């Protein structure tokens, strides 16, 4: 493998010192002279028509500066994630949301908002706003919503189905099932998860006299926020500047326009800067969650393990608005059809409205709801066929050179076999699989394989751009539109630039996520930034390098083609004693040659370079309580070239612990009136440090030809394995199969009771 000087090294985060000393400023830390503080009045009803709103009491409260209600809502509907869609998709875009609608469709939907001199006054003002609600019939589960005669969440959507179901088929599923020696059919359900980034959503908006608004917001998608806001505010993109301060985590939860419109409108009405911060309970109850889902899955296989058919029917609960709903359903089709070769495929996904908070993006986007079923099914098929779970997966998974059935992209790199083999070896698979645990607390081992795209091609016009300017000290300034929410993308991009130019990563100054300054980028989602932006940055750096070479050629009086770059120094071939450094050349170019050296590039990748993983777990199941503890995880990931191995490991470890929470406990639930039951950290069980298993990570690095230095995505995939791996391990330990997430003590105990009842053996 090629040895690089910066790429592939665990370079310290550029911003680590600032973070560890709290020099880093987050959105919550911003303060401006004259700034007001906003609060949102939220609906206590799951479905109601808003009648009269009396704000006179609130308006009379000293210190209240602006109040917004339905009367102030711009007369446009929008989709909170709309942007970057090719024309082909725009005509299908569902725009079902208003800033303040006359009908509220979930508990917690904004009804009014107040900006006041301080937060306490704003909260008191909310209590003085009087709203007449006319309650409407409501519906809380997708099954109920699909039933004939169900109340309609949106009058325009009969049966509560958003648009048309997403459908894909290839071959003939019925024929494939008929040819199978084993056919399995099961129903799986997965819950609503909350991303719970540690920093709640926060936004500050400020208008100038030219009618231009600057918005500091905790987002993963600055350019898309600008795009949607332009529609909502009725002004052009150029009049909106979105700045990302440091963002305290996203995971998908900050991947749509949320509080920015209200904040901007309040600031406009008050004529002063306005800050809007969500409380943690608002964060749980009123920001987006993973789509709860039901999947009916049929799969068939021959005696030798070859898959003959896969037939999946998915129902996604999108809640009150569609937002990412169709996107999740679409990307899930790649996850469903992509990983295993199968001649007969059918996939159908219905995105269904309910009177719950809006579902949205969350790490594991489009994988979670379909791969828990598929990977549970694969283990059961293997058992029925008397095969090892590893063998059935290795036999069927897609190989380099094969096309993806859904996108037709040809796979160019795949390290899955190595992930499976190395993971199995490290966890002691073959020996432990033979062991059968007895007694009250039983041990088991399980695994699963996941494939995930890097970027959303072909569904989005994937693109990133980069600008690099060379400073006269030989350092460079990189301007990039990417959104660093904590994953470390700025450092990875700096390493790519540094590698290209032969300088240290600390010589690369990165400015990111400011729509006024940095070039366009679609944002932080779909594990795309290292893969897409990484290449844009590399191209821009190559342009800088070539311009530096021109200057060096003049400086050294040597021919361009004779120049040798080595460790940050340039010399004519055969004359290393004449070497000049990058800083010397940069200074020469700027001051003698009088040329500013800059490089710019845009990049759109040819496809979506899937990453792969095989994650193995050892668990302990208490058969009296149903409680599952994950003891050990061996995580093997094909990440392409790991630009920064320590950060890759960090992504994997963090993803695994999130994945354990998503698998074992996390489940945002609602009562019979649509109020969330567990909208607090004390009630919604995200994992604490007492849940950390022994985690061993393995980086498998096949070179992906379409990524910078061979890199692929890593962000999403890492959370998805834990649920199926743990479910498979529970089965190995106890003989009980759990098809309903979370794998909570109660669900596991129920499955144990049922397996005892059915006499199934462990």
């Amino acid at each position, binding site marked *: 493998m090629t040895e690089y000087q910066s790429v592939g090294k665990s370079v310290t985060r550029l911003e680590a010192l600032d973070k560890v000393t709290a020099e*880093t400023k987050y959105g919550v830390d911003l303060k401006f002279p004259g700034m007001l503080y906003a609060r949102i009045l939220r609906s206590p009803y799951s479905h109601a028509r808003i009648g009269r709103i009396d704000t006179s009491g609130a308006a009379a409260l000293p210190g209240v500066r602006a109040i917004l209600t339905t009367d102030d809502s711009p007369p446009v509907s929008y989709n909170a994630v709309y942007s970057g869609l090719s024309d082909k998709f725009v005509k299908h875009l569902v725009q079902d949301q208003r800033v303040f609608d006359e009908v509220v469709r979930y508990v917690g939907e904004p009804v009014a908002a107040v900006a006041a001199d301080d937060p306490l006054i704003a909260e008191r003002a909310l209590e003085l706003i009087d709203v007449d609600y006319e309650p409407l019939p409501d519906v809380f589960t997708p099954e109920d919503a699909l039933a004939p005669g169900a109340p309609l969440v949106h009058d325009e959507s009969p049966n509560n189905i958003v648009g048309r179901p997403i459908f894909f088929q290839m071959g003939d599923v019925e024929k494939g099932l008929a040819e199978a020696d084993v056919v399995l059919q099961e129903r799986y359900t997965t819950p609503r998860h909350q991303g719970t980034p540690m920093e709640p959503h926060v936004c500050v908006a400020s208008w100038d006299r030219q009618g231009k608004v600057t918005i500091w917001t905790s987002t993963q998608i600055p350019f898309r926020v600008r795009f949607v806001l332009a529609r909502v505010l009725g002004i052009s993109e150029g009049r909106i500047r979105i700045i990302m301060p440091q963002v305290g985590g996203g995971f998908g939860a900050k991947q749509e326009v949320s509080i920015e419109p209200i904040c901007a409108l309040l600031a406009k009405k008050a004529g002063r800067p306005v800050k809007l911060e969500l409380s943690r309970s608002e964060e749980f109850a009123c920001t987006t969650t993973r789509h709860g889902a039901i999947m009916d899955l049929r799969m068939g296989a021959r005696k030798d393990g070859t898959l003959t058919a896969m037939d999946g029917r998915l129902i996604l609960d999108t809640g009150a608005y569609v937002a990412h709903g169709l996107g999740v359903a679409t990307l899930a089709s790649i996850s469903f059809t992509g990983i295993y070769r199968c001649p007969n495929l059918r996939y159908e996904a219905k995105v269904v409205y309910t009177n719950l908070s809006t579902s949205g993006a969350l790490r594991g986007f489009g994988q979670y709801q379909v791969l828990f079923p598929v990977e549970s099914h694969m283990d059961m098929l293997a058992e029925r066929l008397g095969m090892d779970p590893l063998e059935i997966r290795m036999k069927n998974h897609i190989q380099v050179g094969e096309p993806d059935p859904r996108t037709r992209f040809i796979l160019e790199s795949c390290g899955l076999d190595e992930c499976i083999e190395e993971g199995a070896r490290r966890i002691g698979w073959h020996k432990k699989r033979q062991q059968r645990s007895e007694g009250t607390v039983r041990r088991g081992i399980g695994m699963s394989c996941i494939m995930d795209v890097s970027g959303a091609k072909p569904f989005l016009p994937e693109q990133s751009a980069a600008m690099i300017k060379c400073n006269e000290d030989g350092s460079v300034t990189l301007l990039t539109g990417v959104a660093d929410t904590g994953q470390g993308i700025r450092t990875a991009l700096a390493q790519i630039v540094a590698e290209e130019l032969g300088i240290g990563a600390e010589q690369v100054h990165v400015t990111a996520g400011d729509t006024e300054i940095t070039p366009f980028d679609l944002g932080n989602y779909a594990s795309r930034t290292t893969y897409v932006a990484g290449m844009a940055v590399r191209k821009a750096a190559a342009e800088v390098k070539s311009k530096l070479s021109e200057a060096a050629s003049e400086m050294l009086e040597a021919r361009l083609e004779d120049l040798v770059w080595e460790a940050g120094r340039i010399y004519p071939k055969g004359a290393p004693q004449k070497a000049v450094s990058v800083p010397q050349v940069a200074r020469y170019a700027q001051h003698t040659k009088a040329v500013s050296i800059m490089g710019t590039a845009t990049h759109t990748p040819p496809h979506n370079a899937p990453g792969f993983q095989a994650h193995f777990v050892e668990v302990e199941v208490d058969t009296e309580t149903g409680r599952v503890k994950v003891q050990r995880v061996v995580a093997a990931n094909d990440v392409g070239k790991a630009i920064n191995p320590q950060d890759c490991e960090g992504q994997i*470890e963090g993803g695994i612990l999130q994945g354990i929470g998503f698998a074992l406990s996390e489940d945002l639930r609602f009562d019979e009136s649509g109020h969330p039951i567990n909208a607090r950290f004390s009630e919604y069980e995200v994992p604490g440090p007492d849940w950390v298993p022994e985690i061993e990570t393995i980086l498998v690095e096949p070179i992906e030809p379409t990524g910078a230095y061979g890199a692929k995505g890593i962000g999403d995939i890492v959370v998805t394995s834990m649920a199926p791996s743990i479910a498979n391990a529970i089965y190995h330990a106890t003989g009980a199969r759990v098809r309903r997430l979370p794998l909570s003590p109660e669900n596991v105990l129920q499955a144990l009771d049922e397996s005892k009842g059915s006499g199934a053996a462990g």
Partner: protein
Amino acid sequence: MNRKRVPLTLTVNGEEVSLNVEPRQTLLEVLRDELDLTGARRGCEENFCGACTVLLDGVAVHSCSVLAVQAQGSKVTTVEGLAADGRLHPLQEAFVEYGALQCGYCTPGMVLSALALLTEKPRPTEGQIREHLIGNLCRCTGYVKIIQAIQAAAAKMEGGAP
């Protein structure tokens, strides 16, 4: 906005501070809003997540769940007070070296919680570190590198570093 304020004296990061606060203000609000010490952060408002952890008379507390007036006369240490003479505290160094931070929002609270632990138990076991950190949530790192960093810092501090 003429709400009643009362005098409060604290020693913050070694310096005595006197100011007038509202009795309703939490220590977190006073540190952030009155003293511009933004290392203490709000992650919840229910005494759970630990992003607001500071040291009060040497022990870790959730500053969101202490009224400032309850801290009258106390010594408060925030993350801003850790680096001495421009040098990072060994815990801070270890968090940087081990990559024990991602978004960084929980980091100051984690570091202070760890400092409280190491003050009482200079060489904690991995299990003791986990138990001690249960009042500090992190959603990015999976805690793995945080635990490693604390172990490394403990070794370094015992070896005679500050």
